[in-house]
């Protein structure tokens, strides 16, 4: 048996481990083992590749060491609240790697056949868009250099379309005669990088869950096209697993916002300042920490509804503390998680898990809603649009039709909020004016700390 066959057999083993690893992700009990299996698969694939004949190792080692150190540092230093940005950057580095591999293959064999040339073109395009798109997504999430708001200019979509057209024109010219068209190839690289920036800047912060999922999918597709470039099965298998995963998550996110992918990508949602909500009746009723404590103390069941505001205020630990105090007091405590709460899918789950909230207390929207009218108190922490009842009945509302957590059906609703500024989508929330709603103004963390103090002093 020759060496290449042995390498390919190890690739099969790696593919099996990737698939098993993903399968074990279907339960929190087995997920950690699944992730380790997948990592073992990766180790096997890398080791097998290193055994390829005729390689010199000094540069490989340099890259491996630099990358490993950076990866380890990043993984251990990142705060849980910055996880969305971190996932974005990791997507980006995968995309860049695929772009560079495509480039290196082209540089080494400029005279490839047409099919290989086309796949190189695709891995440059997808890899480039993934890289700069992810960097912009990260900058928006962390609010460095640019703000999280959509950046819009006149004729934006026309500009994007022209760039895309230019990229494909370059692709055609380049594919006709790859060896003679190095400058055209470079133009493709540059244009792809520009397209990545332009396609993410019009998207607002709260739509980032969709973008992160989509970029995740792109990074898989980039690896997959690179697999076609170097005719390697393991890249195709692993890349398409990731590509499929990203697409499914994208769909789930879009469905949870009742919007199409096109609407998320092109509408600049959240940039339009909404007019004062029509027909909102009633008045704002503030409440003090002492009164809120008395109501909570008497409650049989409490549901926390966290949103991005909880992440910003880093309030997850005090929320858990309050939850435990309530439980000791005999109250049933649950956490209702909206699929798009936060800045990436599952963001709230990770934060609450970090704060040691057992995952069986985290309830998905579809499971909590039918029980919502039996709940005594719903505590809304930094969430807004995902609990806006206008989504159910107000056809003129931009979020009409979006599935929401029916927090308004609880007997009493506490809303923890800094001020009366509307949420991300710029929409007034009529829930704040409801008869059963009480506003607890102030920083979410301090407000909860206040409640915890009330519990402890009594």
């Amino acid at each position: 048996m020759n060496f290449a066959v042995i390498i390919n057999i190890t690739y099969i083993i790696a593919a099996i481990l990737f698939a098993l690893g993903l399968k074990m992700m279907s339960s929190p009990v087995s997920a950690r083992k699944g992730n380790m299996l997948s990592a073992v698969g990766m180790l096997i694939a890398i080791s097998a590749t290193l055994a390829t004949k005729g390689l010199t190792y000094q540069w490989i080692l340099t890259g491996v060491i630099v990358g490993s150190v950076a990866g380890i540092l990043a993984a251990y230093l990142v705060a849980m609240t910055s996880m969305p940005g971190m996932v974005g950057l990791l997507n980006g580095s995968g995309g860049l790697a695929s772009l560079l591999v495509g480039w290196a293959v082209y540089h080494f064999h400029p005279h490839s056949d047409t099919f290989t040339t086309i796949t190189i073109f695709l891995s440059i395009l997808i890899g480039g868009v993934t890289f700069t798109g992810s960097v912009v997504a990260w900058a928006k999430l962390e609010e460095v250099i640019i703000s999280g708001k959509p950046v819009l200019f006149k004729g934006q979509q026309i500009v994007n379309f022209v760039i895309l057209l230019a990229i494909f024109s370059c692709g055609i010219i380049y594919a006709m005669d790859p060896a003679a068209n190095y400058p055209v190839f470079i133009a493709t690289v540059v244009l792809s990088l520009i397209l990545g920036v332009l396609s993410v800047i019009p998207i607002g912060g709260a739509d980032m869950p969709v973008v992160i999922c989509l970029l995740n999918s792109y990074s898989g597709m980039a690896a997959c096209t690179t697999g076609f470039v170097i005719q390697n099965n393991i890249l195709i298998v692993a890349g398409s697993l990731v590509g499929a995963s990203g697409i499914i998550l994208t769909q789930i996110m879009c469905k949870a916002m009742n919007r199409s992918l096109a609407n998320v990508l092109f509408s600049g949602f959240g940039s339009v300042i909404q007019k004062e909500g029509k027909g909102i009746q009633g008045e704002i009723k503030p409440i003090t920490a002492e009164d809120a404590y008395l109501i909570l103390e008497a409650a049989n069941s409490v549901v926390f509804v966290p949103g991005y505001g909880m992440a910003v205020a880093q309030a997850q630990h005090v929320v858990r503390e309050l939850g435990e105090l309530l439980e000791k007091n005999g109250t049933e405590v649950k956490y209702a998680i909206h699929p798009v709460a936060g800045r990436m899918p599952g963001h709230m789950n990770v934060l609450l898990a970090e704060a040691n909230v057992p995952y069986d207390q985290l309830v998905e929207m579809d499971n909590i809603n039918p029980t919502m009218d039996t709940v005594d108190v719903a505590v809304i922490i930094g969430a807004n649009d995902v609990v806006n009842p206008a989504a159910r009945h107000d056809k003129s509302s931009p979020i009409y039709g979006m599935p929401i957590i029916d927090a308004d059906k609880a007997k009493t609703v506490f809303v923890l909020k800094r001020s009366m500024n509307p949420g991300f989508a710029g929409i007034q929330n009529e829930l704040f004016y409801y008869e059963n709603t009480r506003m607890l103004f102030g920083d979410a963390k301090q407000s909860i700390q206040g409640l915890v103090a009330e519990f402890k002093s009594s």
Partner: protein
Amino acid sequence: MDPNTLIFLLFVFVLSVFLGVELISKVPSILHTPLMSGSNAISGITIVGAIVSAGTPENDFSTLLGTIAVAFAMINVIGGYLVTDRMLAMFKKKEPGGRK
């Protein structure tokens, strides 16, 4: 490229997409973040291509591109798996009898 090779690669591609869809549909929303970072680490598989480019002697610029690609793919792989493990380690079931 030989048409047979192409068909074979496409075959693998199509089946993998179906497998991916089947596997991912079963992941509960509570695990979506670790799923993303974990699958993200898998997309670092592009390192296989990068290693070959970085290790092929005789072409300086290709080697340079390959080396940078290895570094970035490695960040993707190592960072992705470690951060996923860090997150998954936090997911705990409620201990019977309550916590102290």
